[in-house]
Structures are given as structure tokens and as C-alpha cells.
């Protein structure tokens, strides 16, 4: 046990009553509640069910991992989701990153208007984003499908990338770039060698966010998908018939991929600090 002379917080320790533990226990209970559906999802990916219904646990099996791609429609949907997420991430990082740079560092006419649009887009409910885009496509008779989903995803990712990059750029020390320019670097070189490495964490965070938003999106996509099916749309569509265990397996794999990426970026950030 601790000695009780050094400082006030230590001296208080022996007085801890049971009430001290209410908040930590409560916090852990809520954290468990937040993670409960994840446990259920992972567990039922190992469930040895016979039919399409995956409701009661009937024993451990790895067969769904072996037959991961046995359902053609589901595999195609996952492929669509993955390619759309990758394309949407690349394009929205390029466009949104530039927008974030412009908002964070440069002065231009209409800047206030652009930031207002960015803020309004983030605040607008997804339902309205989806239905207004659908109204545009309906009125102009544009057929909906893979490409309209991609357009929509880039649209809702741009503001998030712009905001993260802007925050990063605004916190930068501008004199470093000026020093590079004084030492004879062209603006392009100064950008590549000085600015880009410094705003990289913001760009990476924006990219992670875009990928997560895109691969998970249901609402906007459902209005603008036409006959094209993405992973969340397929799952939603088959919810009435019973969800095959492959959905749990794919959900588990996507979950692990996301967690590993996030953990890696946190650890990389920590290493840099040390």
C-alpha cells in the first residue's frame, strides 16, 4: 500500500469509499454495452448452423470462413463496396485535402461561403443528402448505379477530409515553409519536402475517415444505387430472409482490418512523440 505523506491525492487514498468505484464500474458497463453487438457478430460467424437462419448457437465451426465467397451476390456486393471505398478515399483525399489547404492557409474571395457549405454539409442529415441527390438524378434523367454511388460518396467524404486537413494546416508554423523558400526551394519542392510531411497525419486521418464512411454507408447509397448493390445494401435487403453467417464473417474481417489500421496509426503517432 502507499505511504501517505507526499501529496494531497495520495493522502486521500485510504479514505476511498465504495462510492469511488461507481463511475469506473458504470463506464465499463457502458463500454461493454457498446461492444456487445460486436461480440455477437464475431461469435455467430463461428456458429455451426444448418440453414440460412443464424439465430441460436449450435457449436463451433470454421466452415463459414472457408465458404466465405460461396454466395455470389454477397461477394459482388462486397467487391462493389471495396472498390467504391478505395476510389472515393483517393479522390476525396486529393480534392478535399486541397480544399482543406486552401481554407487553412490561403485567403480567397468566397472563403466564408465555402466554409459555410462545408459546415452545412456535415450538419445536414444523410437522408436529405441522399434524397436531394436523387432528386437531381431523377429530374435530369441520369440513370443511377455504380458511378452515382461513387459521386455521392466522394461528396460526403470531401468535407471530413477538408476539416481534418484544415485543422492540421492552421496549426502549422508558417515560417518553416518561408525558410524553405528563402533557401531557394521552389513552392512545389517546399510543399513536397516541408508542408506535406507536416500535414500527413491530417491527410491520413481524413483518408481513414473517408474509407470508414464510404464502406459503411447505407442511407445515401440506398437512394442513389439503382440496381447496384453494396455490402450494407445486400445485408439490409436480406434481413427479412435471415442473414447468412458469411455476413458475420465479412463484418468480422472488416472490423479487424479497421482496428489494426487504427491501432497502427495510434502506435505510429506515439512512436513519433517519443
Amino acid at each position, binding site marked *: 500500500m502507499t505511504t501517505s505523506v507526499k501529496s494531497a491525492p495520495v493522502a486521500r487514498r485510504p479514505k476511498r469509499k465504495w462510492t469511488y468505484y461507481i463511475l469506473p464500474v458504470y463506464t465499463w458497463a457502458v463500454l461493454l454495452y457498446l461492444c456487445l453487438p*460486436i461480440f455477437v*457478430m464475431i461469435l455467430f460467424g463461428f456458429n455451426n448452423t444448418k440453414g440460412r437462419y443464424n439465430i441460436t448457437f449450435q457449436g463451433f465451426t470454421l466452415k463459414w470462413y472457408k465458404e466465405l465467397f460461396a454466395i455470389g451476390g454477397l461477394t459482388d456486393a462486397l467487391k462493389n463496396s471495396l472498390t467504391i471505398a478505395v476510389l472515393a478515399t483517393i479522390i476525396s483525399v486529393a480534392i478535399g485535402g486541397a480544399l482543406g489547404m486552401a481554407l487553412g492557409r490561403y485567403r480567397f474571395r468566397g472563403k466564408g461561403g465555402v466554409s459555410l457549405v462545408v459546415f452545412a454539409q456535415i450538419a445536414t442529415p444523410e*437522408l436529405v443528402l441522399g434524397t436531394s441527390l436523387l432528386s437531381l438524378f431523377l429530374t435530369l434523367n441520369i440513370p443511377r448505379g455504380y458511378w452515382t454511388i461513387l459521386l455521392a460518396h466522394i461528396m460526403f467524404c470531401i468535407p471530413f477530409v477538408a476539416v481534418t486537413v484544415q485543422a492540421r494546416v492552421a496549426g502549422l508554423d508558417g515560417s518553416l515553409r518561408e525558410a524553405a523558400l528563402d533557401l531557394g526551394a521552389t513552392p512545389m519542392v517546399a510543399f513536397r519536402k516541408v508542408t506535406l510531411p507536416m500535414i500527413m497525419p491530417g491527410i491520413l486521418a481524413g483518408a481513414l475517415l473517408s474509407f470508414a464512411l464510404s464502406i459503411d454507408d447505407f442511407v445515401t447509397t*440506398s*437512394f442513389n444505387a439503382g440496381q447496384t448493390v453494396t455490402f450494407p445494401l445486400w445485408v439490409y435487403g436480406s434481413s427479412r430472409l435471415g442473414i447468412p453467417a458469411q455476413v458475420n464473417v465479412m463484418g468480422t474481417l472488416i472490423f479487424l482490418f479497421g482496428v489494426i489500421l487504427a491501432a497502427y496509426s495510434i502506435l505510429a503517432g506515439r512512436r513519433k512523440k517519443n
Partner: protein
Amino acid sequence: MSRALPDDDVRISPLRQRLGRLTGYWLALPGGLWLAIFFVIPMVYLLSLSLMTGDFINGFSQTFHVSTYWHTISLYHDQFVRSIIYAIIVTLLTIVLAYPMAYWIAMRGGRHKSTYLLIILLPFFVSFVIRTLQWQFILADNGFVLGTLKHLHLVGSDFHLLATPVAVICGLTYNYLPFMVLPLYVSIERLDPRLMEAANDLYASKLQALLRIVLPLTVPGIFAGVLMTFVPVASDFVNAQLLGGAKTTMIGNVIYTLYLTNNDYPAASALSFTLMGALLIGIFAYARALGTKDVMEAAAL
């Protein structure tokens, strides 16, 4: 390229300078255009489509027919009111659930703060639809919650949760809780700990310190959290679809069906536009009530 002013004192050529002054424009242009074409202009089309008349087979034409609005609002006002009520209940529930937790993590989390935050974000690595479906399964009539309770005869055998408002509100609260915890956490974490010490020195009880110092200073965080939960909850339709029944239909479900099943585009866009207008008015009224300074702080979070 020839320089307009061959002056050695000017380190950067005027052409460069001019291009440099335009950098902001060309950096902002692609993003600004994309948002204009696929976010701002569609809003105009949403309004325009809501004023059209016609049907799916013969096509729609612009007639500036405003009565679609009164007609659809009177037809679906139950769902409208229900969405707002659910959103209020869910927002209050998330504040009550999230505040103690955010407080504890911010004040006593120590060096594990980022671990707790990562756990709060874990659900986002699972698709929204799959998460909600897991609740369908957890709350099912013979699932492991109700099945066990029924087995122990704690509830009647015909007791059910799915297709009731309770299930929908549970699902919504679950899905939007992280959006409340995070802004609350940020605003509590930014508090100066000396304020609490001062309160303690001046003989405030812990409860008084909480009510008179911590709570008022974290109003911007509560504001941000309310915005981030109320708006999406009021327009959500996935939870009502997967966990609810005929009596829990929300306005989002109506809009979804009108667009994609009934092809009644004017009615659907009129409802959509009304929903957006109602939420905007709500946000502005709320911002006015709280004062602009707090709103700017909340927006900066």
C-alpha cells in the same frame, strides 16, 4: 518566360506572385465545385421536384404546386411527431448515459484515455446495418435476453420487445451514443483542473462543483452532442425498419417508401424538404437560445 519587371530586389517574380495569390482559388476550386454540384444544386432540385405534379407513368411537370406540402404533412404528421419525440427521448437518454462516462474518462482516465476512446469508437468499425441487426437478434422473442427471462418466468411468454417503441429507442440510443460521448469528453477534458481545486478550497461539495462549475462550462459540448445526435436520429429509418413495426414508423421510413417503392417523388421531396427546414429552424432557435458565443465554441470542437 520574360519578367514584366526585371527588378533584382523582388525575389519572387511578379508572375509567380500573381499565381501565388491565386493558389487559394485553384486549391479550393475542385472541392468547392464538387460540393456545389452534388450538394448545393441538388437542394434546389429537391425543392423543385417537390413543387411538381404528375405521376410516375406519365411523367412529372413543374406546376409550383405548393399544396403537396400541406397534403403530405397532414397525411404523415403522426410519423413526423413520432420522429421528433423519439429524437428528444434518445437525445436525453444519450446525455444521461454519456455524461458520467465522459466525465470519468476525462477526469480519471489518466494515461488510458485514448484506449477508452478507441473502445467507444470500436462499433464504427462494424457496419451500421450489421450492428442494428445484431440488436434485432439480441432482442428477439426467443433470443438470449428474452429467452432467458421467459425461462425464469420473469416475464410472460407473450412478452416481446421487437416491433415496440422500446426496441427502436434502444437501437437508436445505442447507435448514436458515441456521437454524444465524444463532444462531451472533449469539453470536459478542456476544463482547467484548477477550477475544481478552487471549488474544493472554497468548501463546495462535489455535487455543487459539478452543478455550478463543470456543467455550465461544458454547455458547448452538450450543444455539439445534441446537434450530432438529434439531427441524425430524427431522420433515421434503419432502426425503425429493422427493430420496429407498423406502429413505430418514422418520417424517414415514409420518405424511403415514397421515393423507392411508390415512386411518388413530389410527395417524397416535399417531406424531405420539410424535414430539413424543421431541423434547420430547430438548430437556429437552439443556437439563439444558447447565445452565439457558445455556438461558435461548439462549432470549433
